């Protein structure tokens, strides 16, 4: 179960690196800001500094998950699992916050949250069954 969890968490990290790229690098492209519910280039410019910063928070969560996976892989199981759980739980919580932002945010929230949710569940099932 934990091996499967590491695969799913890796995918969740890859997705958050993609979100980082969209928010912090490619934000002013119409194809990007439209995905985030914005309606005009002007709105994209207004939100740009915040999007730039928020993208990095997503990058940090991805890096936290990857460092956790590496620590787990080299035998530092408790610290590795702690970082994986914290990073995946933060991704999932961020997706739940997205749902509460307003109408129209359900779809992006499911995209952001489904992988960390599955990864966390597999990890916890593995831990409960005595894997370490």
């Amino acid at each position: 179960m934990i091996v499967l969890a590491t695969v799913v968490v890796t995918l969740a990290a890859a997705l958050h690196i993609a979100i980082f790229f969209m928010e912090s690098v490619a934000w002013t492209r119409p194809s990007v800001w439209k995905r985030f519910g914005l309606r005009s280039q002007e709105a994209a410019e207004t939100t740009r500094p915040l999007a730039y910063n928020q993208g990095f928070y997503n990058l940090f969560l991805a890096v936290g998950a990857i460092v956790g996976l590496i620590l787990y892989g080299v035998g530092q199981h408790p610290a590795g699992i702690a970082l994986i759980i914290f990073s995946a739980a933060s991704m999932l919580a961020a997706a739940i916050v997205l749902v509460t932002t307003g109408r129209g945010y359900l779809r992006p929230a499911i995209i952001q949250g489904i992988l960390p949710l599955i990864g966390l569940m597999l990890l916890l099932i593995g831990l409960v069954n005595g894997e370490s």
Partner: protein
Amino acid sequence: MAIVGSTLIAAAAVVHLVFFAMESMLWSTPGVWRRFGLGSQRDADVVRPMAYNQGFYNLFLAGGAVVGLALYWTTLHEVGFALVFFCGVCMVLASLVLVTTGRRFWGAALLQGALPLVGLILFVIAENG
């Protein structure tokens, strides 16, 4: 060293809780959005959904640091250190990103980054001492 480091990390967590309150709860107050470099209520409304979400990322970092401190001083010393270290590094890096956003954000970056930076240094010295 670890005690002073813990105090500074706890203070950094409080700063991040204040950021959460400003971004996610008090955003529409002019006194708040002006601090974040916005020029009008209209701009603040455009940015609002994004500020609401970003505030929670600060809340998560604060929560991770506090849980890490609690574990560090109780049963799971190494797990606690890993969480404190990760959340502290994220706070410092987020403040560096703020520096690269523009000159007007330097004050906010210093407020966000100084406490976790010094706290982290003391923590690492304590772990290796």
